[in-house]
């Protein structure tokens, strides 16, 4: 099998050492060693470009989407209107008391993260985390201005010169432009985007807008440009949390040492002396491309964000060597262990590459590879079920069937009741009617369960049945002081529960509030 490689060109061996080594841990206060990730190319890199384009587009463009909600509401598709306490999301409008929808979404996001993590490991970290996306973006700029890994390392080591100063200035300027655009995009979620853009440009926007932009610009520049992998390693809690979500059947980026070891740069020499060698040629390509500055061959480690760029790098090398891809691959711990048992003949003796190879030099069919069936296991099914139950069962159903009129009643407590000159009893109520639709509506307010009682409110008309007619502006709350009066002939001493019902005159939507009518226990 080694003969085959000898006819192939030797791959370039990179002088790359893991700066965040799992073998030799640096003291916590040691100065940061710079990471110069090399450009990777391959399937995962392409996938990451696509994810980056989609996520950035969502972030920057969402506030500019328009959505016609009629004359009484905003036209912005996604808007968090803090001043008026409304949240608009396309056809959905959420009032503060309906915030459980947002809480439900957050719970769904949590369960979704459990699901994804238990299936494909730290995919969030590797592909969609904003830190990953923006660091990637900043690295593109850096590579474009200063060149790839070797050029950047050379430039970094060189003394300051006009050329170096120029490159650095260009790089940091572009970074800051990106940072400003990032910080700037955030505020458009909280106000009408075109208006706010005009205000920001003319200096007329609220100070909070500028402060927000400034803070987010600073954090984007510092986190994406300067701190990079340190944010993941030292600041982010997710690596710790996600690590415990993995189990033996989760896919993780794995160096298959059952196949790669013993590694060696001089495979020809090794073959000549009759020593068996693994597939790893110790070219360090996987180390050079790692944005976290680790060596995946040291095994699973905290810093690994599962971005799979090392898989791309290694696959490229394997292609050159004419070997199967997948020396570094997404693998489950179960498969890894099974393969390792084959490579070591089930014992604790050193890895023997020939055990995993057929006579033709191909990998043995006995080896385990990822079985899609393992993705469907009780744990993932439970997560998926919970996720769907919450999302479709609760959120969607609740959203479709929710009431757009709401009544809240506060009974007067001081005084509890008023005795009127004809002996009847009157109670006062502060009634709040919420018209949650963006159109003006009129409600009828009537009572049920209080014998002989009548109701009045200053400035409102009673209809023929004695119910109050309450017009409410679109998307607003109206507070009405309602007096309910019961003749003494009908009164029962103590408290009587009854319902106040608000009913939309145009539709059959209604909302009921149960309150009580107080009458003195002892008549005067």
């Amino acid at each position, binding site marked *: 099998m080694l003969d085959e490689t000898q006819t192939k060109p030797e791959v370039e061996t990179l002088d790359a050492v893991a700066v965040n080594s799992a073998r030799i841990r640096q003291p916590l206060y040691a100065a940061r060693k710079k990471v110069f990730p090399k450009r990777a190319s391959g399937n995962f890199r392409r996938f990451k470009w696509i994810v980056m384009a989609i996520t950035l587009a969502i972030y920057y463009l969402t506030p500019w989407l328009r959505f016609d909600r009629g004359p009484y509401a905003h036209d912005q598709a996604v808007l968090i209107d803090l001043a008026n306490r409304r949240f608009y999301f396309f056809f959905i409008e959420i009032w503060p008391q309906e915030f459980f929808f947002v809480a439900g979404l957050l719970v769904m996001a949590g369960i979704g993260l459990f699901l994804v993590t238990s299936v494909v490991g730290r995919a969030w970290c590797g592909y969609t985390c904003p830190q990953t996306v923006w660091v990637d973006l900043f690295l593109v700029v850096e590579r474009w201005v200063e060149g790839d890994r070797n050029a950047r390392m050379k430039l970094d080591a060189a003394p300051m010169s006009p050329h170096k100063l120029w490159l650095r200035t260009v790089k940091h300027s572009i970074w800051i432009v990106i940072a400003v655009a990032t910080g700037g995009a955030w505020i458009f979620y909280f106000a009408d985007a075109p208006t706010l853009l005009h205000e920001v440009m003319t200096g007329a926007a609220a100070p909070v807008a500028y402060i927000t932009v400034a803070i987010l610009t600073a954090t984007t520049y510092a986190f994406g440009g300067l701190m990079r992998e340190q944010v993941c390693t030292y600041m982010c809690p997710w690596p710790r949390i996600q690590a415990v979500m993995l189990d033996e059947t989760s896919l993780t980026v794995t160096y298959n040492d059952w196949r790669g070891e013993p590694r060696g740069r001089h495979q020809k020499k090794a073959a000549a002396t009759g020593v068996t060698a693994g597939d790893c040629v110790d070219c360090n390509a996987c180390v050079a491309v790692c944005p976290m500055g680790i060596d995946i061959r040291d095994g699973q480690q905290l810093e690994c964000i599962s971005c799979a760029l090392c898989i791309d790098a290694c696959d490229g090398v394997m292609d050159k060597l004419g070997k199967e891809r997948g020396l570094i691959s997404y693998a489950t711990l179960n498969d890894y262990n099974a393969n390792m048992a084959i490579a070591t003949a089930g014992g604790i003796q050193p890895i023997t590459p020939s055990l995993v190879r057929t006579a033709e030099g191909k990998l043995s069919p006995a080896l385990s590879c990822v079985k899609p069936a393992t993705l469907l296991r009780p744990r993932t099914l439970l997560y998926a079920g919970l996720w769907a139950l919450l999302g479709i069962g609760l959120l969607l159903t609740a959203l479709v069937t929710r009431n757009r009129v709401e009544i809240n009643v506060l009974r007067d407590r*001081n005084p509890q009741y*008023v005795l009127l*000159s004809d002996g009847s009893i009157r109670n006062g109520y502060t009634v709040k009617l919420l018209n949650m639709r963006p159109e003006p509506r009129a409600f009828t307010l009537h009572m049920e369960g209080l014998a002989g009682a*009548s109701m009045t409110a*200053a400035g409102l008309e009673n209809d023929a049945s004695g119910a109050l007619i309450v017009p409410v502006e679109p998307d607003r709350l109206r507070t009405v002081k309602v007096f309910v009066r019961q*003749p*003494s002939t009908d009164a*029962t*001493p103590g408290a009587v529960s009854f319902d106040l019902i608000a009913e939309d005159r145009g539709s059959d939507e209604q909302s009921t509030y149960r309150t009580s009518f107080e009458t003195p226990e002892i*008549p005067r």
Partner: protein
Amino acid sequence: MKQDHLDEISGVSTTGHEWDGIRELNNPMPRWWVYTYYATIVWALGYTVFYPAWPLVTSATQGVLGYSSRGEVKAELASVEAERSAHTAALANKSVSEILADDTLRQTAIQSGAAAFKVNCVQCHGSGAAGGAGYPNLNDDDWLWGGKPEQIEYTIAHGIRSAGDADTHQSEMPAFSDILDREQIASVAAFVVSLSGTPKNSGLVKKGRTVFAESCAACHGNDARGNQELGAPDLADAIWLKTHGEAGIVAQIKAPKHGMMPAWGARLGDTAVKELTVFVHSLGGGQVVRGSLFPPGEKREITRVARPA
């Protein structure tokens, strides 16, 4: 002090201090930490220059910015005043009925009237304006001096039997112990109770009606419905200001007690009086200007709340 001593295990130099063979490693603080510390010192020094800080014998340094917490409060109060000035001016220029007709102004007046009520009126009328024995309940529909907005305004401004206000409501019920004999008083009390309840001795009622017509109807009216011009209470309704029951009525006929309410106009000013008027009117007892609080033509009949069986 030994210099350049290196710790064998860590390879770090020590400070040279030694206690019983224990040495202190010379591990400096992280630089950003030290710089932050210096920055706080600079900040603190600057702060004492810009803001009042150093104590002197009788005062303290004023700081170059001229800041003072009293000044800040003053500025805040001024800005609140400025914010309110539009409303205040509108309330000052409009009559109570105009305020009541304008929804926004009415709401504003109710808010500020409620605040003024909490400060000036709760001592007698209670925090819920429900009054007490001798202090009228402002929530109900029984008014001694009238419950129309203008009447409420007049009463608040000039008070009742308030010394020092020439326009105050003035009228007092005579003490009938010198005018009527015991039996007459007992009979008229029985008659008055019969208007809204059951007297203890119903035989006296007929006689009491005669006494009432002779001695009381002049102020309380032939039907005992009272007279708001004179502040004479309606004796035929369910509401009693000072007392109820025959014994109490007898005592009131013999030697009447008279309530006193201060004139608030001079003390609070016209605007505050208007705000209070609108607030009191909003409590539900006021006679409503626009539309009626109760359906018109309703039969007014007093009945008691049934006791539980």
